[in-house]
């Protein structure tokens, strides 16, 4: 299971902030989320959304270890 976290506007779109979901890779996880909630799917593929696995930004796909923390980060607004 991956611990999935949504930030900023993504959280408003999905209506949740944190969930544990089964997924073997980022691509699989995105597909799972999009199948369940098309608005969230669209937002996850939106411009400037970055993915962090275990608190490090990753580009492209990546296999997820058990207990991975996957965060979807929309464009940062600064403080």
């Amino acid at each position, binding site marked *: 299971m991956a611990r999935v976290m949504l930030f*900023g506007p993504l959280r408003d779109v999905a209506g949740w902030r944190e969930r544990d979901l089964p997924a073997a890779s980022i691509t699989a996880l995105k597909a799972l989320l999009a199948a369940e909630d098309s608005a969230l799917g669209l937002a996850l593929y939106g411009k400037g959304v970055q993915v962090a696995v275990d*608190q490090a930004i990753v580009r492209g796909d990546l296999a997820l270890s058990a207990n991975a923390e996957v965060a979807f980060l929309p464009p940062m607004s*600064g*403080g």
Partner: protein
Amino acid sequence: MSVILQDAPFDPGALLLTFSRGREETGAIVSFTGIARAEAGRTTTLELEAYSGFTEIEIGRIEAQATARFSLHDVLIVHRTGPIAPGEAIVFVATAAGHRREAFEAADLLMDYLKSRAPFWKKEVGPDGERWIEPSDRDRTDAARWD
């Protein structure tokens, strides 16, 4: 050198007091305090979200770059998270250096980074509803000065 994120309000004066104590070879200390504006009633609350752990690491990375680039003696960054009322401080940055130019430029760079690229998500809540904020064009061009 430290980065502190906290939900609780803080007092910039108290932070500067502690930061400036006992410095015999530091010639210059610059502090910046960012305050939530009431915007004449348009904003009632600002809500700031961070990614706990990740946000501190990312800010710490820029802090380390600024320290090297401007030969800083010390840096402190304190940032509020959660709901913030108008008039309350959002961010405090203090830099200590041998001379004033370095202290000024380091604080300036850190603020430009914090306002445009730091991992925060910010929502304005007012009588007309709520909206997510993005960095202004000015924030982006200010930050690009240091690239």
